[in-house]
């Protein structure tokens, strides 16, 4: 089968990407809101704006990375497994992995934990993601719920994408001058 046929349609990609954006940007923004009062105490607004540009640019790149991960899975696995149900299974896969990482990061901060412990957790995370993704495609009500949620989440892309592109431009300009 040609690779093109295994690639999801653009209309399928947006909802999955929206889920990824909510989680990656949301995690950073959640912590940034905790930090903001402290920044306001000693940084001028321009400097805080520059910091947010770095955050947005980083989030943009890592969200694309996560999306590519799901797309690559869709390419590797049989068409029926992911590609045909890309919105529901892709969303659940991405969300499960990202939420599992959140849980891990919430509880661990030592570099040695990330090097030694995370690889031990990874198979469980992937197994869980696989099971949930399977259920999300198999049980109709879950599939519909995920699809509706993901498609509505696309609205966030109208905010995140322009802001991220603007942020990348700001970061580039600040590092060229």
């Amino acid at each position, binding site marked *: 089968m040609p690779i093109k046929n295994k690639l999801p349609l653009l209309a399928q990609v947006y909802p999955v990407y929206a889920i990824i954006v909510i989680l990656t940007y949301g995690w950073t923004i959640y*912590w940034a809101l905790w930090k903001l009062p402290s920044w306001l105490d000693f940084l001028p607004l321009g400097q805080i704006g520059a910091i947010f540009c770095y955050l947005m640019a980083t*989030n943009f790149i890592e969200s694309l990375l*996560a999306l590519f991960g799901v797309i690559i899975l869709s390419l590797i696995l049989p068409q029926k497994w992911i590609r045909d149900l890309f919105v529901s299974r892709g969303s659940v896969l991405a969300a499960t992995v990202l939420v599992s990482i959140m849980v891990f990061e919430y509880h661990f901060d030592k570099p040695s934990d990330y090097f030694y412990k995370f690889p031990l957790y990874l198979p469980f995370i992937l197994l869980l993601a696989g099971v949930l993704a399977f259920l999300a495609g198999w049980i109709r009500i879950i599939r519909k719920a995920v699809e509706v949620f993901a498609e509505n989440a696309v609205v966030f892309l109208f905010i995140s994408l322009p802001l991220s592109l603007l942020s990348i431009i700001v970061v580039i300009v600040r590092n060229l001058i």
Partner: protein
Amino acid sequence: MNRLSRRDFLKLAAIAPAALAFSQTIAPSPLGADSPNIIVLVFDAMSADNLSLYGYPRNTSPNFERLAQRSNVFHSHYSAGSFTTSGTASLLTGLYPWTHRAISINGQVAPAFADKNIFALFGNSYDRAGFGQNFLAELLLSEFRSNLDVHLSPASFSVREQMVGSLFEKDTPASYYALDDFLFRSSDSPRSLIFGLIERALFGFRLKSISTVGYSDTIPHTDYKIYYRLEDVFRGLMSELNQFKQPFLAYFHLWSPHAPYIPSQKFEQLFKKDKWNPPKKPNHPLGTQATFQTMQFQRQQYDAYVANVDWEFGQFLDALETSGELDRTFLVVTADHGEMFERGVFGHDSPLMYDPILHIPLLITAPGQKARSDIDSQTNSVDVLPTLLHIAGRELPAWAEGRLLPTFGGVDDNSRATYSMDAKVGSSFGKLSVASLAMRKNGYKLIYYKGYTKTDWFELYNLQEDAEELNDLYNKDVSTSNMMKDELLTAFNQHNGPLQG
């Protein structure tokens, strides 16, 4: 060669006593040619109270004592700030924290004063170099970057480092704030969900290959993923010195002996079995209420680390002597703030204003100086900038809040008021409602805790009779208390308004 006539001889004889008298003070150098080199070596969190040089019972600083034999030793030198940002900013600007407003952790000098730094004032006839191994000092150096000819990365001379912000070196400190202090900050969960995971796992992998030979567990490191060996840092600094153009002003701010205290195996047992115990002091309500045993353990670790740092400093000193650098250089050795192990607090992350946190070492060796001079009068870190400008033959700026140090054009004056301040929780831009302040004058110290509880409170100590600050005289010596309180409040209120640009 012209021979001296009898008349010339008589003229010289007449001015000889005056010349001898003035030789006790260091005259300013003429601008330009023959200006002396200056090295400012700052040890982070080094309390004078823990140095044998200043009378500490443990032998923590034999090499400082060796340097002291050919230095001007300031015995009553205090930092204007109680942690790196405020203490360093005062050192580099000659301004008190209430003026420069670098009062928050990670803060910077207010834009209005950013060009009033020592590097700008020295001008480009000096080769000006800055190294801040402590991230907070590096933030200040980044702010003054346009006035630096050589700006060494905080990760220089390290064994392993992972400072992500350095990749965007044209945009520090914004990149530091965003990346090293937030997204990838090592002491918290990563704030970047995916890259944070990768970055930390990668660092965990890279840490695995660090050789810990000579250390029990790990080698010294900072809060910001910089792992280093002290000997590498001093060796690296020595090598940098050889590359600077003459004359140079080199500001080297080392992380050690800041926590975590990691002495090498050679030093870690040094004070473990001695029977010495510091005087017990009551816990302070604003302290963290650590137990006496915890504070003792931390103190013992700190003292061993200080001894380790002192030993490595001794090697650096030898290298300076051997290379002849000390014959053409003013060497200034000091700290940004101290460290305390009493009253329920260990470290310096505290609003308390007791001597262990504020009393810091200051030794200044003039080129070729052979004799020791002890200066007992009270001085402050804001005095360093005017003194260095004087040494380099620069004009003293009218706005500087410090004075020339005694021996370097200044006079002994214990009747002057000097200040220290902590206002980490306040805003750099507005009125400070929570702060602790200390004022020293005539051998007394008045401490003012403002806004921590419903009612502000004061403490007064006579440092000459009560060096341990155990006998609070605030309600006993009312006239001194009132006099000092009025002066402190007047000075504070003059500066405690919205920041003027």
